[in-house]
């Protein structure tokens, strides 16, 4: 296949990935690596390099829209970025010593988890009503827009959230994804932030996490311009279009379709990893 045809196909595929990722809230990054390795036969290192860069694009693009709405908690985000950047650096270093087979298997497991978490209940649980010593010291308690006005919330579980964020960064550095699902888990379940605050703060953090390992990937020659160009442009346009459509779209069916797609990609990644085809 010639460069022109390949670039066009990659662009269309990435556009679809960005659109679905944005509509379902899972992010386009999780499907870029399976798309490139399974459908286009790209080496997993090139695939991870292109994916990581496109993750920065979607995170920054979406965060630009979210920060204005006043949901994201800058202090929580910045404090936890210590953990995610440390994890991302460690992950990028470990990735060299991991064989492609193993990376494919780990990737499949994370995909299954992401598909599952996108279905888990999204109801806002009551935020902690008592103040937490560490969270108070770190001035993390804040407010968010809710119904009539600003609603105050308390943060808790800072050490647990911090630890899980290190894991999120580690996965991001090894797999070239945003690890949004793990980040939301840390903030929503452990630190008890309101759901919308968790998702927007997570999105805000993804770019910084990915930038930490991007330099190492670039230095190792994982980032191919010919491959990254159509992928980044496709994912970016797709996710921007997705965020425009989002208000009013019925996402329940869409999320089901995407979860099935991700589930089957996961099985294929694990199978190919175990049989040594990746």
């Amino acid at each position, binding site marked *: 296949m010639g460069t022109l045809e390949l670039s066009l196909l990659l662009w269309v595929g990435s556009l679809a990935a960005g659109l679905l990722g944005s509509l379902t809230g899972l992010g386009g990054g999780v499907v870029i690596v399976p798309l490139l390795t399974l459908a286009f036969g790209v080496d997993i290192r090139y695939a991870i390099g292109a994916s990581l860069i496109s993750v920065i694009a979607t995170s920054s693009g979406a965060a630009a829209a979210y920060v204005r709405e006043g949901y994201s908690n800058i202090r929580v985000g910045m404090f936890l970025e210590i953990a995610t950047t440390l994890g991302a650096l460690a992950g990028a270093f470990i990735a060299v010593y991991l064989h492609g087979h193993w990376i494919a298997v780990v990737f499949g497991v994370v995909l299954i988890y992401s598909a599952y978490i996108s279905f888990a209940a999204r109801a806002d649980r009551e935020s902690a009503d008592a103040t937490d010593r560490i969270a108070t010291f770190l001035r993390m308690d804040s407010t968010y827009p809710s119904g009539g006005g600003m609603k105050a919330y308390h943060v808790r579980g800072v050490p647990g959230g911090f630890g899980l964020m290190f894991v999120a960064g580690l996965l991001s550095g090894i797999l070239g994804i945003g690890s949004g699902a793990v980040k939301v888990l840390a903030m929503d379940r452990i630190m008890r932030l309101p759901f919308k605050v968790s998702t927007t703060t997570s999105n805000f953090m993804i770019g910084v996490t990915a930038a930490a390992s*991007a330099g190492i990937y670039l230095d190792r020659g994982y980032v191919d311009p010919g491959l990254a160009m159509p992928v980044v442009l496709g994912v970016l346009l797709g996710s921007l279009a997705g965020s425009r459509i989002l208000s009013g779209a019925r996402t329940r069916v869409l999320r089901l379709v995407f979860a099935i797609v991700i589930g089957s990609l996961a099985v294929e990644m694990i199978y190919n990893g175990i049989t040594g085809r990746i």
Partner: protein
Amino acid sequence: MVGAVNQKELDKRAEIVIGILLRTGVLVSAAVVLFGGVLYLIDSGAQHPDYRAFRGEPATLRQISQIFRSALAGDPAGIIQCGLLILVATPVARVIFSVWAFLRERDWMYVSVTLLVLALLLYGLLAAHS
């Protein structure tokens, strides 16, 4: 330290600037990547690239100083890579701006937190070479 209301107000203004910063970074980067991409396709659109085997990129497309050099020399792949570097620099610029925003609030704890994040980022970008 400034009062809670004042802190919220400053936070709000910082968030607006961060939003503009992120959007500008992404748009400039996408424009540079698109420009380089068009040149790249004109140049080598008929070639048959093979991404099945990993060879790694040449030094001209790996090291920051060399990427700028090949971009300025008009190499399409170098221009794309330069656009990708701008993308990677966008969150870094966001963190640098946050240092300044916390400094204005005289929030020394978060100035330190943000400086630590910045140091880790710069380490990954500049120091962690093989």
